[in-house]
């Protein structure tokens, strides 16, 4: 059979005309902030790398008491295991970084306004799931660093008043991080989270296709004849592919230059190494917990910090309810100031977390 007829047949059987039509109709605004439109695609691409390398790692990883030994084998014995593992780690960090950039650019371009609210809500949920991916995955090698980082990281759920400690214990499968913790974190990391993540991601991507990219207010203010666009398919897709190539290249560069190391095996009885801290994406909460703990010591401080996080998160998620319309009102300016304030707080506390 000729390739062309096969293609035509496939399009017909799968009903792809609809999709092609939709993709053909969609355009991407062209202006000086177009660069930020790439970050959603970058997040998606690094997530795909995660899926592929994650499946490959599962071939050799053994959760439970043998977790450390299996990661040691992957890193030092299995051919190119170091590469797969390093790429998985680096693209995990890159994934969360690009998700953050994507979220803040969406926020600053006010792309959460009607009719794109569902995109924003699903995006926030995807971010939280992504952070949980990161937290659960970090423990899996069970080396000294991941053991103690998880131990400290557990202080965050532990700080929720009354229900916090039972939740933390349930997550850990014990009073301390142990082999049961690895087992359940593994189940969380490779089964539960993907099950939740995939449909949400589908919804999120569908929303982007449906409503298209939002132009920032500065662009909206222009006359329609002054605005420039490019077709999503094939022009923007070609550029997306170019960016993906670059991202792949950067991740392999990082993996080649700085292969992820494996520390000594976790020893629950050993003293924590100095300067132990969670990964950078939890640094802000960790630092705030510490700072507030200095002002209000004890349980009250932890409760205060947790209330602050929850309140901030809820406020952040509810932005589309407050700032709905395209008009540039006082409200929308207030939201902008709030967003800048949040970014500054996150950046400064993250920085402080590494210093204090």
């Amino acid at each position, binding site marked *: 059979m000729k390739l062309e007829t096969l293609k035509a047949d496939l399009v017909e059987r799968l009903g792809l005309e609809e999709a092609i039509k939709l993709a053909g109709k969609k355009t991407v605004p062209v202006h000086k902030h177009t660069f930020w439109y790439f970050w959603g695609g970058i997040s998606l691409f690094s997530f795909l790398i995660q899926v592929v390398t994650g499946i*490959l790692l599962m*071939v050799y990883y053994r959760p439970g008491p043998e977790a450390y030994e299996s990661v*040691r084998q992957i890193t*030092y*014995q*299995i*051919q*190119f*295991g170091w*590469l*797969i593992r390093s790429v998985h780690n680096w693209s995990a960090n890159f994934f969360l970084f690009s998700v953050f950039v994507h979220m803040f650019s969406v926020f600053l371009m006010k792309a959460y306004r009607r009719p794109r609210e569902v995109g924003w809500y699903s995006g926030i949920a995807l971010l939280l799931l992504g952070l949980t991916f990161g937290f659960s995955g970090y423990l899996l090698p069970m080396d000294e660093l991941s053991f103690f980082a998880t131990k400290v990281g557990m202080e965050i759920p532990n700080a929720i008043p009354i229900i916090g400690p039972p939740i933390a214990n349930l997550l850990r499968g014990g009073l301390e991080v142990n082999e049961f913790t690895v087992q359940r974190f593994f189940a969380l990391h490779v089964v539960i989270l993907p099950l939740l993540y995939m449909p949400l991601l589908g919804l999120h991507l569908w929303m982007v296709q449906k409503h298209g990219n939002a132009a920032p207010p500065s662009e909206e203010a222009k006359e329609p004849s002054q605005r420039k666009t490019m077709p999503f398919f094939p022009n923007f897709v070609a550029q997306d592919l170019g960016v993906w190539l670059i991202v792949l290249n950067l991740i392999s560069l990082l993996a080649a230059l700085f292969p992820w190391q494996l520390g000594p*095996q976790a020893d629950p009885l050993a003293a924590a190494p100095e300067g132990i801290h969670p990964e950078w994406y939890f640094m802000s909460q960790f630092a705030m917990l510490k700072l507030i703990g200095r002002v209000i010591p004890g349980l009250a401080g932890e409760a205060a910090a947790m209330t602050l996080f929850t309140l901030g998160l809820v406020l952040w998620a509810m932005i589309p309810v407050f700032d709905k319309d395209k008009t540039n009102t006082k409200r929308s300016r207030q939201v902008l100031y709030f967003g800048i304030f949040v970014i500054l707080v996150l950046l400064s506390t993250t920085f402080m977390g590494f210093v204090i």
Partner: protein
Amino acid sequence: MKDEQEMVLTDPSSPSSPEDVSRRKFLQTGVFGACAIYIGAIGYPVFRYLNSPVEASQLASAVKEVTLDKANELAVGTAFMFKFGTSPALLIHHADGSWVAMSAVCTHMGCTVKFDEGAKKITCACHGGVFDAATGENISGPPPRPLERYDVKVNDASVVVTKIS
């Protein structure tokens, strides 16, 4: 010039002249070539990764026993390096007359270890790991596990080293 202008205005996927067709062919070849390099660069490590246990078991099944001719004449208190399959191994004739054979691949990062006659220890120059020369036990430094021990049989003409299954 007219030609080029047209190429811009029309869809690049619909060639207008024979010259364009050959150009497109050439470009397509280039793109396929780049794709092939990428697929190779990604596929090769993935294949080796998945194939690793196969390679390991092939190596293990290839050599189970090595006969070292005249090794029985090894002086007391000295050691002898030999190849067990593809990896280096050590045969030591201890001062107390006992014979020991073990893998010479450091369990830390795979450097080749050395028998230190003076200190009666096995040492690894790469990261300072030290093993017991009689048992292969890891004594100090970063190695996580002891060296792999082999069975030794000494006869009149040779020493036979066998893998412990």
